[in-house]
């Protein structure tokens, strides 16, 4: 095939996915999808293998491939032009029940030529808790509607019996219906555009280009792996839930052109829904691998071939039915993301050529709070605080992490405006701003996370309830790299501001946590009210730092201090910087002396042995 045609087909495949994502966002009415970009669209070959990975949450790219393969197995002989299938069972391929895969075969001249698959986190799935994250569930049976594969469109006709069965089991069926229709529209666009591509170039040429593209990706990744040093790198993630500690332990081994991710050192499956099933871990390790090792390589089956995973059955990274998994995406899967980001970062840092691609861990811990209740218009609202997608960048070998800079597993993640949240829910924000000291210290600082607080406002029921499935208040999770500090942990505080605890002091105008009157109770796991005069305060993690904090440019530390993202205590005690007390200006000689003393203190420590 001539290289021009190959290149055009490759770009057309990118554009098909792009246009499908735009469709998805514009049809869905949910802020989770169109504001937070909790979505994914990709194209798959006729056998279900990944052809063109799209944007959105990258841990879905390979899981949706398994979903396509599961549909091929289940519906063999019964897959027709115009069909569409729904799959959301985590023990088949999905990550958790809320992330519904809609899968569309693509036919041309009566031949199956490919698949389009997409997901959104639907408005509700009928789990114990509204919104899908279900911290009180003790098994998959209470985590809502779950299908290992069902035909929802039969030869172009929507099966209303199937859709109505699903809608009969969820809260806010009209919003869930809109979610499903956005997925249908998305697949329609992807399928139609793919068929146009084949009509123009012919099936043989397009298929040839697709196979070449996959082989090319495989070759490029194998070549890159050969350039990287051989070795073994370890990382460890801790998750605390109700005072119980769970670990995701990873040893990544690179030999020649082959990478093995071994999660054998992980905790047994948990009674809590932070577990994930096998294909979820598999997807989880690819979420950082695609952007960190394949930033210039097309994300397809070829990238998958050199990779192997070991995840023993019965562990938190390969749990057995009926273990609960509804919090997996922000639980074990996210820790798999983080652990793989660390080991890949260490491997890159060991390479002269690729050291500039290494990164400390970004936004390691979604707080994923779902609000629900009667809204100011008398209807019911359910939705995530989209700030959970705002994240924070990890530091790199040449630059600070980006403040509130998103996350590695979702390159298009973002948060809604405060006004959008206030329009969707009967609440009022008191503040939302960057969080001082939350970025991991280092020669290059991790990007800071942020803090927010809100109170009920114009709520017919006096307030709302919320689901919090937060881990990581006891452990920072955004690990640093090459001597950097981890980013600060998350924090969730219920501010009890009744007359007894707060007197007449009004919470409603507080501008900081310190100025919020009333008792502050840490809440991490379960369903809680935010009623009356109470408030909710959330602080989310910063990114990991890179390198020794004592080597950070003192002027950069002073600038951070002046901007309010580093405290005076941290400036002095972590970065060893001295400022003139009155003028606040950098004291160069004082800093040099303080840093020398700090290094001297380190020398007095015992050997690690």
């Amino acid at each position: 095939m001539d290289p021009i045609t190959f290149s055009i087909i490759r770009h057309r495949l990118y554009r098909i996915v792009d246009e499908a994502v735009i469709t998805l966002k514009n049809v869905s009415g949910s802020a989770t999808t169109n504001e937070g970009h909790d979505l994914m669209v990709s194209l798959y070959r006729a056998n279900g293998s990944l052809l063109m990975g799209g944007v959105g949450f990258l841990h879905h790219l390979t899981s949706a491939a398994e979903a396509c393969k599961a549909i091929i197995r289940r519906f063999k002989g019964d897959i027709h032009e115009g069909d569409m299938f729904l799959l959301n069972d985590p023990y088949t391929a999905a990550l958790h029940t809320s992330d519904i895969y809609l899968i569309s075969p693509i036919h041309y001249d009566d031949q199956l030529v490919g698949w389009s698959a997409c997901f959104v986190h639907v408005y509700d799935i009928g789990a114990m808790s509204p919104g899908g994250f279900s911290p009180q569930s003790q098994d998959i049976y209470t985590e809502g509607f779950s299908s290992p594969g069902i035909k929802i469109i039969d030869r172009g006709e929507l099966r209303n019996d199937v859709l109505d069965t699903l809608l009969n089991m969820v809260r806010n069926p009209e919003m869930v219906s809109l979610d499903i229709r956005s997925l249908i529209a998305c697949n329609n666009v992807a399928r139609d555009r793919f068929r146009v591509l084949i009509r123009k170039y012919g099936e043989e040429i397009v298929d040839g280009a697709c196979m070449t593209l996959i082989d090319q990706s495989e070759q490029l990744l194998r070549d890159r792996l050969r350039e990287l040093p051989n070795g073994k790198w370890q990382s460890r993630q801790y998750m605390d839930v109700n005072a119980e500690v769970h670990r995701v332990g990873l040893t990544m081994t690179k030999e020649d052109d082959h990478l093995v991710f071994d999660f054998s050192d992980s905790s047994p499956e948990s009674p809590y829904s932070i577990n994930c099933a096998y294909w979820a871990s598999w997807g989880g390790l690819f979420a950082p691998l695609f952007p960190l090792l394949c930033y210039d390589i097309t994300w397809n089956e070829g990238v998958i071939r050199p990779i192997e995973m070991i995840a023993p059955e019965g562990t938190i990274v390969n749990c057995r039915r009926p273990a609960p998994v509804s919090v997996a995406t922000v639980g074990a899967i996210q820790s798999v993301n983080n652990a793989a980001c660390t080991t890949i970062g260490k491997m890159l840092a060991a390479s002269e050529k690729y050291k500039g691609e290494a990164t400390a861990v970004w936004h390691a811990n979604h707080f994923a709070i779902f609000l629900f209740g009667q809204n100011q218009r008398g209807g019911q609202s359910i939705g995530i605080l989209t700030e959970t997608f705002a994240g924070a960048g990890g530091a790199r070998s040449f630059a600070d992490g980006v403040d509130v800079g998103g996350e590695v597993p979702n390159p298009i993640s973002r948060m809604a405006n405060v006004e959008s949240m206030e329009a969707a829910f009967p609440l009022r924000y008191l503040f939302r701003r960057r969080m001082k000291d939350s970025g991991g210290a280092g020669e290059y600082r991790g990007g800071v996370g942020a803090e927010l607080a809100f109170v009920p406002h114009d709520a017919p029921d006096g307030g709302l309830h919320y689901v919090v499935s937060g881990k990581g208040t006891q452990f920072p999770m955004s690990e640093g790299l090459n001597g950097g500090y981890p980013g600060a942990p998350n924090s969730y505080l219920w501010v009890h501001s009744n007359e007894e605890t707060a007197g007449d002091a009004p919470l409603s105008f507080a501008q900081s946590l310190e100025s919020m009157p009333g008792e502050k109770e840490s809440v991490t796991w379960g369903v809680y009210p935010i009623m009356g005069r109470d408030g909710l305060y959330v602080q989310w993690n910063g990114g990991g730092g890179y390198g020794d904090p004592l080597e950070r440019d003192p002027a950069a530390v002073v600038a951070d201090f002046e901007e309010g993202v580093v405290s005076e205590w941290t400036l002095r005690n972590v970065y060893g910087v001295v400022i003139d007390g009155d003028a606040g200006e950098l004291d160069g000689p004082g800093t040099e002396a303080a840093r020398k003393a700090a290094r001297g203190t380190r020398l007095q420590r015992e050997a690690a042995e």
Partner: protein
Amino acid sequence: MSIRISATLEARMVDGEGRIVCVSCSHPLGPTDQPWKPAATLNELPMKGAGGEVYTAGDDVLLRQFNCPSCGKVLDTETALRGDPFLIDEVDVSALSDS
């Protein structure tokens, strides 16, 4: 000849033996076929408060800083629950003895 191990460490021949050394000051941290962390000085900070008040970690959570015993530079850090083993990273430096 030297082989990069991380931003702070490399492998070099020292007196005819392969050694892991601190990049900043060339201080040797043991043979290349053994973990280097035991030869570093260990600063185990309580994670709570380690980077300011926002570090609200549990009492048994540590920030382990492995420092060069000669120049005091931080060579690596890890988050650990008290009692958990050190993370071990190994880079293949067999090319060093081949050279």
